[in-house]
């Protein structure tokens, strides 16, 4: 691992989707020449309107997808030089996720959903650790309930517990409050930042919730695939 490379960065990243019914001139540019660098421990919000390419950028930063052009760095590693196998290995140790639609497996209980990343890593005391995280998010009594028996806010709390249980240094969150009402969303934001501080995690989140974006140290704005950094005045 070379520290000459940035911790988390995009360098000249573009994403182009070919339009099957048109010529090259009409190809869809989801991201255009995106550049930024994020230091370890920072919290960064990517904001923008629907369809501006926020989720695509997040997915690429996390190594879930590859760009058409440019370089991406995750935990000092150049993602664009890695195949799917190595990216998966990197994710296993470095990355955790929180999704807008929670992505809890419906056939697993709340506790088992939290155990899943620990089991994938082969952690021995997955059950006990998962129990601790479940208590942390205030759902200690709901461990044996299935996702469909939980409210949206409760499901997102389980998802947050799962993300922190992975004990990864980088946390990506895609619209974590997007499916929740304002009050529940507020509780979730508090929980997210509280845990983030406790674990010193690098947090990258995508949102159009102004309140949430304000809690982050930096805010990057995407408009029609182009990125600008918002500076407080």
């Amino acid at each position, binding site marked *: 691992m070379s520290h000459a490379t940035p911790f988390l960065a995009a360098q000249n990243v573009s994403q182009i989707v070919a339009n099957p019914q048109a010529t090259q001139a009409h190809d869809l540019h989801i991201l255009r020449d995106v550049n930024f660098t994020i230091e370890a421990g920072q919290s960064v919000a990517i904001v923008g309107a629907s369809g501006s390419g926020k989720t695509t950028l*997040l997915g690429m930063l996390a*190594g*879930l*997808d590859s760009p058409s052009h440019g370089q991406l760095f995750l935990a000092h590693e150049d993602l664009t030089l890695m195949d799917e196998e190595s990216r998966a290995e990197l*994710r296993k140790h470095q990355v955790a996720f929180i999704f*807008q639609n929670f992505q809890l*497996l419906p056939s697993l209980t709340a506790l088992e959903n939290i155990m899943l990343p620990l*089991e994938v890593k082969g952690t021995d005391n997955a059950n006990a650790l998962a129990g601790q995280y479940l208590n942390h998010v205030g759902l200690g009594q709901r461990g044996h309930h299935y996702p469909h028996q939980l409210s949206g806010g409760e499901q997102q709390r389980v998802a947050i517990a799962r993300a922190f249980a992975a004990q990864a240094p980088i946390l990506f969150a895609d619209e974590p409050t997007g499916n929740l009402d304002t009050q529940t969303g507020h509780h979730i934001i508090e929980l997210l930042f509280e845990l983030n501080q406790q674990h010193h995690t690098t947090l990258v989140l995508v949102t159009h919730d102004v309140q949430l974006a304000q809690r982050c140290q930096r805010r990057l704005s995407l408009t029609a695939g182009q990125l600008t950094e918002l500076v407080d005045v």
Partner: protein
Amino acid sequence: MFKLAARLAWRDWRGGELSLLFAALLLAITSVTSISLFTHHVKQAMVSQGADLIAADLRLNSSQALPEDWAVQARNLSIQQAHVSQFQAMVFADNGMQLASVKAVSNHYPLRGELSVGGAAFDQGIVIAHGPKQGDIWPDSRLLASLNASVNDSINVGDLSLTISRVLITEPDQASGFASFAPRAMMHLSDIAATHAVQTGSRITHRWLLAGDKSALTSLQQQITPLLSSGQRWQSPTDGNANMAATLDKAEQFLLLAGSLAVVLAGVALSLSARRYSLRQAKHVALLKCLGLKPKQLRLLYLSQMVLLALFVLIISLPLAWGLYQGLTLLMVDYIQTSSSTPALAPFILGAGTGVLCLLAFVLPPMLALAKVAPAEVLRQSSNQKKANIGHLAIGFGAVILLVYWHSQSLLISSALILGVVVILLLLALLTHQLIKLGNTIRPHLGQGAKIGWANLVRRKHQNSLQVAIFGLALMLLFSLVSVRSFLIDDWRQQLTQDTPNLFLFNIYQEQRQSLLGSMKQQGLTTEGLTFFPIARARLAKPKVDNPRGDRELNLTWSKALPAGNSISQGRWWHNSSTAPLEVSIEADYAKSMGLGLGQTLTFNVAGIEKNAILSNLRKVDWSSMQPNFFFVFSQPLVEANSASYMASVYIAPKDRSKLGPLLREQPTISMLDVDQVLQQVQRVVTQLSLAVEGILIMVLGAGILVLVASIQASIDERRHESAILRTLGASKALIRSILLVEYASLGFVAGLIAGLGAEAVVAVLQNQLFQMPVQLHWPLWVLTPFIGMILIGACGWWFNRSVITTPPLRTLKQT
């Protein structure tokens, strides 16, 4: 990884995700294994019935005595043995004498089947385990009647005086053709020498009866076959009786066909449920990838899960299949009996092998392909419903071909089925597309529920074409099987009606015909349907045929009309037989084996006089009709009417059998061949087989229903989601129910219509090619099948979609 796979598999199982896949695999293995076990059992029963007809598992017929060391070889292989020698000899009693066919048997005779004896002529027989002991003789009812003797009298065979200890009623190996017209006497083998009736050069037939382990018998047969001389030949249970063999053959073909259909149906069910499972797993895979699982690990994960599933299903399905088979045989214990009850290993291997192959071909490809799901899929809001992968379909189809061939071991069954499946799938997809388009035009005139139902049908036309194809395929296979079963059983039953002749009368001279009829009437015996066939004996002089059959003396007959049960396969039957030159008609297969062709002039030697006849037609003969059948029929009498002898066949009811003794005493010169026992055996087999066929049919029907369920389940998620949306928009339960009913009933109607036509085509090919029977059309099938499809699929769709209506819409929407 295996531990993680086991944990995830257990959680999927608990959540019901794996249940349909489990059910499909369970059904595939259970149905194939139990059908195979049952087929094996029926085959064993058939062989055992056949074995009864030769009184052994294997028999060597020989015109000369057998070397001593062969018996030693058989003993070394722990094979049971018995010897039978048969010859003709005069039997003398105080009140008469009669030429008899003497059967001398050793101690262990019979090895298979039952011997029954009585205390007087034409008694009801009592089963006895062995033949007569030394010094005893058992004449049959005919011999006893013609000798005017009774039990405890002494009679002489050649120089030896023997005591009549019982009357022979039935013997298992009685049906040794029509060669022995003389009445029977059974004595002990060791008494032959003392009779002095058998001298060097006497015509004597030796039969070496063997029974025991199949592999030991095969091994003995292999050792001895190279040493056989021209007058020695093996006889196995299946070639014991042509009539029975044909019946058994058809039954076996049916069982193989049914087994193959079960495999196809199980494959389709598995393929459908595997597809649904893999679609539902896509998000899981994306999430697991986000958590850092590599594609290789994911493949290993799913492979391990499938291995676990296979093991679990095998552990349950094999004993279940055994139980089912036991239940079925228990139900039919009175009808289907085998001598051996050892469970065969082969059906279990076949069942397990089929399951594993199905899993590899239908389930594994979509599972392994899951590893290709992009991890970014997890960020998408809606799931990406992928179209069926052509490669996976090709693998599945290849596996079906392989499996059908493995089961049927018949290229004909395999190709007829595969071709039928391909054609029906194409036809179904095409027709559904067109019908749905047509429905578009009538939609404006329908009620609200029907309108939305039709709109759904049109919107999902590709998916619906596939679903109709699957419904249609399952229905077609089921309809085919039901009609094959019906015509097969009808054919068997027709073959053996209640009044099938069971008594053949020979050596009747012209002037005796009236007196025979008179005697029969006097005894109160029916003479209805009794026809006399003239017989002359002759040899084919020219052309010289290089075939042992051609050198034999033949029984010939002549007739103006085509005999009943015969049909012309080539040439024309004669019209004006009295003036035209002599013509001859020959049984088609016989003519072929002799190399004789239409228009050829043949020369026959009839009692020293040469007669020329033109071969004017070839006939197909129904050998199973139990009517007198002839290889050669001439257009004009070959001998003077008063020098011809006649034969006839007649049905004697069981209650009238006691009247045969007095009849024979009145007509002592007439010979009689009683085939009642053979007929009863055939009838028993037919009853057994009919039941077996019904049992198998029920199992295959189960497989068919599972395919329907799997197919309905495959689209249930989508329907549930749509219904939830409709209900939130204010649709009543009744409206949703009517939408579902319209959708499924329409699909069922189309599927039933095409399945009926497809089944007709498949059945016609099978009737013509596989069962060698005339093709019949079943028009009620065409009318009924659309409605059967409509009701069956409408009902299945409604039943399995109940949860679509009853689940609160909010829960459905939350889950998706």
